[in-house]
């Protein structure tokens, strides 16, 4: 290997840092923008529930009094209703769940038997019924705690004895305390869910756009090999004893290293901005490396076949956009028409983008990795061969 040569042509590639910076910044800015656009700007809808209270005892009253307190009213809307009304509203998708206090709820509670609030979820909704379910769980926990805490008093109550006002006051105070902690809980849920969605969207865009922009770098980097100026230099290089193979290899390697480093820079920026929870860095490095090899070699093959930088560049932009569309750079694959989705395997971006997204979601990506590996290796050797052959003494 001619290290001095490799080093020199690698160094050349950084001659215009401002252009490189701009091209790197664009996908980052775009994904940041999209991240902001998709942020939950719209108002949070309160959780709407109907309550069927067949109990009408003290235990259900404790819960309901909390639910109609001003603090809770900010995020929860309950209406007491009879069975018929409640189910009608559920069918009409006007509420997310129905809360049922069974007939002997208080009785069981006071006696220390297990008590459950029944919840009927609206199957047409996804998040709110789950929030309601978690909420119910919280209520039950609090009620059970209170029951255990005032065991003596409750037992006395169940025996029909008179209890002190002190006990009632204490119960209410404790209840208030405990419910306060619940009041902020659905907001946390909401934020977490929204945040996750936003994050995965941002990562989706950064990955897709990143690969899209990297194709431009790959193209520019390798096709300069068949540019007019480079051809002049080649003459002198060959006379100076560099073989076409050494030349071709060094040109490929320096371009690959260049694209790989840019890819790393982009990924590092994305990592800092979005701080994803998943994504094995080592797997990501492998994906980036394979992509650098594949994309540089793809345009290398074009250069090897066409042999003229300008002509290659004209065709390249077409391929870059095609790859980006089919590879899910602009829209998720699921949003593409069926026919296009079937063609996505033709895209150079596809296996790498999918692998990246899967890794970021904590999923397995070996299928796409293998696809990418085979593609990149094949393109690399083909490009190396074609370009070396073109440069041989004729």
């Amino acid at each position, binding site marked *: 290997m001619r290290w*001095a040569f490799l080093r*020199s042509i690698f160094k*050349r590639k950084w*001659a215009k840092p401002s252009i490189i910076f701009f091209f790197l910044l664009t996908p980052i800015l775009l994904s940041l923008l999209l991240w902001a656009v998709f942020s939950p700007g719209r108002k949070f809808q309160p959780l709407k529930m109907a309550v069927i209270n067949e109990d009408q005892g003290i235990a259900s009253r404790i819960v309901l009094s909390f639910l109609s307190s001003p603090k809770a009213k900010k995020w929860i809307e309950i209406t007491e209703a009879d069975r018929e009304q409640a189910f009608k509203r559920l069918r009409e998708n006007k509420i997310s769940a129905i809360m049922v206090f069974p007939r002997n709820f208080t009785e069981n509670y006071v006696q220390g038997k297990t008590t459950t609030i029944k919840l009927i979820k609206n199957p047409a909704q996804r998040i709110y019924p789950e929030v309601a379910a978690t909420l119910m769980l919280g209520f039950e926990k609090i009620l059970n705690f209170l029951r255990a805490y005032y065991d003596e008093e409750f037992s006395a109550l169940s025996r029909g004895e008179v209890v002190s006002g002190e006990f009632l006051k204490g119960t209410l105070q404790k209840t208030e305390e405990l419910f306060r902690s619940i009041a902020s809980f659905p907001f946390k849920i909401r934020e977490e869910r929204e945040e996750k969605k936003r994050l995965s969207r941002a990562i989706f865009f950064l990955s897709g756009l990143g690969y899209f922009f990297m194709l431009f770098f790959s193209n520019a980097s390798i096709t300069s090999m068949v540019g007019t*100026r480079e051809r002049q*230099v080649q*003459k*002198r290089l*060959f006379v100076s004893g560099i073989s076409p193979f050494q030349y071709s290899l060094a040109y490929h390697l320096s371009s690959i290293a260049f694209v790989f480093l840019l890819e790393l820079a982009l990924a590092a920026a994305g990592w800092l901005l979005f701080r994803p929870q998943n994504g094995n860095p080592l797997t990501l490095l492998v994906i980036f490396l394979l992509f650098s090899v594949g994309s540089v070699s793809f345009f290398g093959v074009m250069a090897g076949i066409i042999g003229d930088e300008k002509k290659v560049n004209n065709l390249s932009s077409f391929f870059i956009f095609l790859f980006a569309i089919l590879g899910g750079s602009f829209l998720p694959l699921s949003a593409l028409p069926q026919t296009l989705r079937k063609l996505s395997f033709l895209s150079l971006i596809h296996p790498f983008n999918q692998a990246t997204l899967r890794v970021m979601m904590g999923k397995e990506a070996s299928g796409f990795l293998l696809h990418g590996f085979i593609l990149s290796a094949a393109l690399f050797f083909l490009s190396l061969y074609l370009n070396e052959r073109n440069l041989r003494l004729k």
Partner: protein
Amino acid sequence: MLEVRDLEKSYGEREALRGISFQVREGEIFGLLGPNGAGKTTAVSIIATLLRPDSGRVLYEGRDVFSNLKWWRRKIGFVPQEMAFYEELSAMENMLLWASFYGLGRKEARRRSAEILEVLELSHRAKDRVSTFSGGMKRRLNLALGIIHNPEFLILDEPTVGIDVQARVYIREFLRELASRGTSMLYTTHQLEEAQQLCHRVAIMDAGEILVEGKVEELLKKAEENITIVLRGDFPPMETLRPSLEKFSGKILSFSGEKVALEVENEGAVAGLIKEMLEAGISLREVDIKKPDLEALFLKLTGRELRE
């Protein structure tokens, strides 16, 4: 000694070289002089082993250069017609890169690079990116890169094209100095003056052929043998004019309705011819009596003028 034998080369249908032969002796500056498109670059590219000839051979010290590629490439320095270096790197970085190809050690490479850049007056800009250089500076760097390894045979393809007179003179001096220390050179140019001043021997090329070859003094003598003149005006057909032309001249070199190139024996004949033409009612706009130089020789040989 470099020996070029019957080189032929075609690009598709176009014959760029139609069998050229010449020799370059040790320590000699040999000039290939010819107009654009004569085939100089093609010839030089073959000799530098960048192109294979269709037929013919190139021998150095009796060995075929294509059969001894590595050996030959170590011996030559090559200065291509176009700028051949990396503009994004500095002059020094370019020098060190090429030095590395010839296995020069780090120290030796630095020393030689600095020395050459100094001589070619580039050392004050050695660390600047070459893309910021002027045309003349780039030309000098192009030359510098060809001699980093002190080659025993230097091939230069129009190394002074497109630069100012001062820089041209400077490069010429430099090459002469190099030759005096034993470097042989093959030098192409389309500028007769340059060939005349720099080269020991010259071959004049046109359309892929060598028209004449020899020492510069000998060629100049040939140019002096007769007077070459170019007349411009409105001429009647060749047949009407021929008797009077032939009365005074040895040879018609070329003829068109507006321009006639002639070779005549002496100045008296020039005067007589012009007088007769004017008497015949021919309107003459210009009479150009050529200096006896390589340009006149080229005109004699081809009927065309070698223009810069």
